[in-house]
């Protein structure tokens, strides 16, 4: 296993390199420049040349690329043009924290409630509990999260004054955004758990456990759940990445100073350094999550072997 993990980490570096390279060259083919055209067009050609030179943009793209790589390996992610002068590291560090907090809470709440609903729905297949879970699941996935966020804000914030309407002032500020984001998570997890559970509960060993007299709760949690978790873990990976990297709409509605809008803003403004910094961050995060999930597969279901089998 250890050899496998090391191998995967090596792949991680290679993958990141590929992603960074592709993004770098694609990004430089985007229309426009990092500068405000309306302002820069007022400068003379000579003045403009100096501007480009000061950002190193006057050199051919592949030279800029190697320079960028060199900086990366020295730990320098560059400075932003959109947030003029700020280092990419400081921007990322500051903006990721609120998104991470809201995201982790949303995932945890979603996971717990989702598991609960899914298990109960499967156990009580075709009863009202089952249908209720179905309804919640469908609503959770088809009502866009910004609508949920707006409704929560209106009722809990404005009308009943129970929680902050917006801003990022105290821990209470993170409750409504996390709640709004958790609906989608609940919906997906509940459905997957229910589906897998339904199959698992029909297996012989469950019948055997029942015959042995083991309590239903124990059967559900000890035996059935573990075998139903495979798709849940898989989906948890992409859910986590999506939510942690910030939900644009929900963060806007609650005034959370998070990372959600950063991607769109920087791509639209051609802020090359920040785009690459973000890309590297997201990709590294995603790849690490996939690695963890693959390892979890083996832990959860010992029948799975990822290393090539000696057949």
């Amino acid at each position: 296993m250890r050899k496998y993990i090391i191998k995967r980490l090596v792949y991680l570096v290679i993958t990141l390199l590929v992603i960074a390279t592709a993004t770098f060259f694609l990004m430089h083919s985007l229309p426009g420049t990092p500068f405000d055209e309306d302002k820069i067009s007022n400068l003379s050609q000579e003045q403009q040349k100096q501007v480009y030179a000061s950002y190193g943009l006057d050199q051919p793209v592949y030279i800029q690329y190697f320079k960028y790589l060199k900086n990366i390996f020295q730990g320098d992610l560059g400075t932003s043009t959109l947030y003029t002068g700020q280092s990419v590291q400081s921007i990322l560090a500051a903006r990721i924290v609120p998104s991470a907090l809201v995201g982790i809470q949303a995932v945890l709440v979603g996971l717990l409630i989702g598991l609960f609903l899914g298990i109960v729905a499967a156990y009580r297949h075709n009863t009202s509990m089952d249908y209720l879970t179905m309804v919640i699941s469908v609503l959770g996935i088809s009502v866009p999260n910004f609508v949920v966020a707006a409704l929560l804000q209106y009722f809990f914030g404005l009308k009943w004054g129970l929680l902050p309407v917006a801003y990022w002032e105290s821990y209470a500020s993170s409750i409504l955004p996390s709640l709004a984001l958790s609906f989608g998570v609940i919906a997906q997890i509940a459905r997957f758990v229910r589906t897998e559970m339904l199959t698992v509960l029909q297996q012989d060993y469950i019948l055997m456990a029942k015959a042995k007299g083991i309590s239903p709760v124990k059967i559900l949690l000890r035996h059935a759940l573990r075998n139903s978790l495979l798709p849940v873990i898989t989906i948890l990976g992409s859910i986590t990445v999506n939510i942690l990297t910030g939900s644009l709409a929900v963060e806007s509605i609650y005034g959370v100073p998070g990372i959600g809008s950063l991607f769109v803003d920087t791509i639209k403004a051609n802020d090359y350094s920040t785009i690459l910094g973000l890309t590297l961050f997201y990709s590294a995060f995603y790849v690490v999550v996939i690695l963890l999930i693959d390892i979890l597969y083996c832990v959860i279901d010992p029948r799975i072997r990822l290393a090539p089998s000696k057949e």
Partner: protein
Amino acid sequence: MQNIELTEDLFCPAETDASDREKISRPTRSAFQDGWIRLKQNKGSVIALAILLILVALAFLGPILTKYNYYDTNYKAIFQTPNAEHWFGTDKFGRDEWSRVWYGTRISLLIAVVAAALDLVVGVTYGSISALLGGKVDSVMQRIIEVLIGIPNLIIVILLMMIMPAGIGTLIIAMSISGWVNMARLVRAEILKLKDQEFVLAARILGTSNKQIILRHLIPNTVGVIVINTMFTIPSAIFTEAFLSFIGIGLQEPKASLGVLINSGFQVINSQVYLLFIPAVIIVLIMVCFSILGDGLRDAFDPRMRI
């Protein structure tokens, strides 16, 4: 009761053929026919299917039923709540919402179908091959997925937008870059679990080709997961399309999809609630039907559910 003496000559051996013992008494049905029959027995699924068909019919016939079309503006009739003239009201340009909503449903259904097709064709195949072949192939295929997800989608979308005209076609290309990845990962996970089980081993010993193993044995057992995930991909695709149309790739005014209508409706949520409510209800309705239908499909086709 009388006592009848049972002597040997009252019995004679039954005429049996060795082949008779091997005969299957039920009529042969393929997996598909089998599933279809079971599906029809599920009342909920039938109703859901019916509602879906009605929605599809409305999507095509709806705009015809009224004299207004989806793009004519009327600045003296803006923001009308639903009334006798405009059954769903009008939007900020005075355009008829009834037409716009059904026209939008058409487009959203198209996107749903495309997204589902992508998932089923590309996602399932990719995932199953990756899992079944395992080892180096699996490694490479998964790394490819990581690269596809790692490169910011928005950049690719904007570049596409520069070289191709905005429209549904470009939209579909943009969505097909990584829309199928979740399905691939899920199917791979399931198959990794299944591929070392006894029945696969048995199939291999019998000499079944990889393709047959995938199609006949592995995929039917992953139907549950496939169906559920397809159901999640659809609304996700609809809202991704709304986002893309908002930034200029995809639908241009005056065309609209349900996602775009919801986005615009959200902006006037404080005053004209119906503009958000109506398309949202339709999406929820479509999703509920897909959901019930999906469950029915899974119940019908999943061999492990067979009683």
